[in-house]
């Protein structure tokens, strides 16, 4: 496959940045999107150019490090797929592909396609935990949990914190991420004592980071590589309203 890439290049946080066009030839359809970029980077290094910086780690779709906006869609158009699990066979030979970093004020660009997602860490630090000595994994049946709750909590816990929801949201809101983290704890018995204070602290931190407000457009869940449903946001809203009513 031969491709034309239009990639966002930005040498550092203070650089203005611009789109740069690259031709990539002999791309195998079996390559992942990141491997295709590796090939381009090898060439750039050999030519003495600066390789394109992008985040990646496990390349198995479970760590949440990778992520770029491909042709206007966070993680590309393949549903429920991280960028590392997106394969070149989903693109047509001769295609032009635009690649941009996540765009949000709380996610400042570090370099090229790498953004600083520490804002997510601070949201977790505000309340995304349980203040009980959790110890080692408890026996499966020591605390009864309804099957439906266990399933929903697990689904929410699959959030890998990649930030695609923020990137896709027209408001730059982090509601799906924050709601997933709140939901995963609020559905389990261990999360009950701090349920309302957690919702309030995390939502307030999310707002303080400068993320936008949720208008329920559903763009986030459509690009989420883990398919976190909008239910999570409704649950967060309910807990947040209750916390403020107290």
């Amino acid at each position, binding site marked *: 496959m031969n491709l034309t890439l239009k990639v*966002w290049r930005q040498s550092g946080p203070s650089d203005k940045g611009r*789109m740069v066009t690259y031709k990539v030839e002999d791309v195998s359809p079996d390559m992942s999107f990141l491997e295709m970029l590796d090939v381009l980077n090898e060439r750039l290094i050999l030519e003495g150019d600066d390789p394109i910086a992008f985040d990646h780690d496990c390349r198995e779709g479970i760590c949440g490090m990778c992520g770029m906006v491909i042709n*206007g*869609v966070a993680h590309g*158009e393949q549903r429920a797929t991280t960028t590392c699990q997106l394969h070149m066979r989903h693109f047509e030979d001769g295609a032009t592909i635009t690649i941009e970093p996540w765009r949000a004020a709380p996610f400042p660009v570090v370099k090229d396609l790498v953004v600083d997602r520490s804002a997510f860490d601070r949201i977790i630090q505000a309340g995304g935990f349980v203040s009980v000595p959790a110890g080692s994994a408890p026996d499966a049946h020591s605390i009864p949990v309804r099957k439906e709750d266990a399933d929903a909590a697990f689904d929410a816990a699959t959030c890998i914190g990649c930030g695609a929801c923020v990137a896709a949201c027209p408001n730059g809101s982090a509601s799906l991420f924050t709601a997933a983290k709140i939901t995963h704890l609020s559905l389990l018995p261990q999360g009950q004592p701090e349920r309302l204070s957690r919702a309030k602290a995390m939502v307030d931190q999310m707002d303080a980071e400068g993320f*936008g407000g949720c208008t329920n*457009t559903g763009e986030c869940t*459509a690009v989420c590589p883990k398919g976190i449903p909008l*239910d999570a946001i409704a649950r*967060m809203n309910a807990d947040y309203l209750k916390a403020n009513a107290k």
Partner: protein
Amino acid sequence: MAVTGAVMVLFLVLHMLGNLKIFLGKDSFNEYAHALRTLLEPLLPYRTVLTVLEVVLVASVVLHMWAAISLSRRAGKARPVKYVAKKSQAAGYTTHIMRWGGVTIALFVVWHLLDLTFGVVNPKGFDSAPADRMIAGFEPSRWWVTLIYIVAVVMVGLHLRHGVWSAVQTLGWANSTRNKVLRLSAGLLSAVLVIGFLAPPLAITFGVVK
């Protein structure tokens, strides 16, 4: 957004039912308009209930607009650098027309009040009976007024198709099992309002009601 929107939706339902009284005859419509003003009389002075309702509505409109503007400003601040390419992945187009749809509806409400409430742009003027203003306003020669109403009412319908469900989601009552019913209800309510609001002007323009 959710609470003020709900107030306005309740108002729209009552407003639509009131409008439909034109099909029961001019007298029925005028009596209804009079009854709104004399509600709870003599317990309360003339027009008390209506004035209270008007204050609540104006407050809802202002707060709704304030919420929309602040959301929109926050969104702008949260994404100072725009995407070169951006493609929507969510189903439905109604979410994309909420802001401009809202502006359209606000402009229409101004015209609507000047036309049928204050009679400034109405051929019959302020001192006429409500039913006469309504019938004169939509007479066949003023087909363009009817056209404005069609555009505005359809815009209201699209606004509510997303808005009603969105309000339920914002208040935390939505979930996957309820969503199908909720979205269907939102669509149904929007459709009923659009039909209910368009029936009187269309009937007048086409000479069914004279």
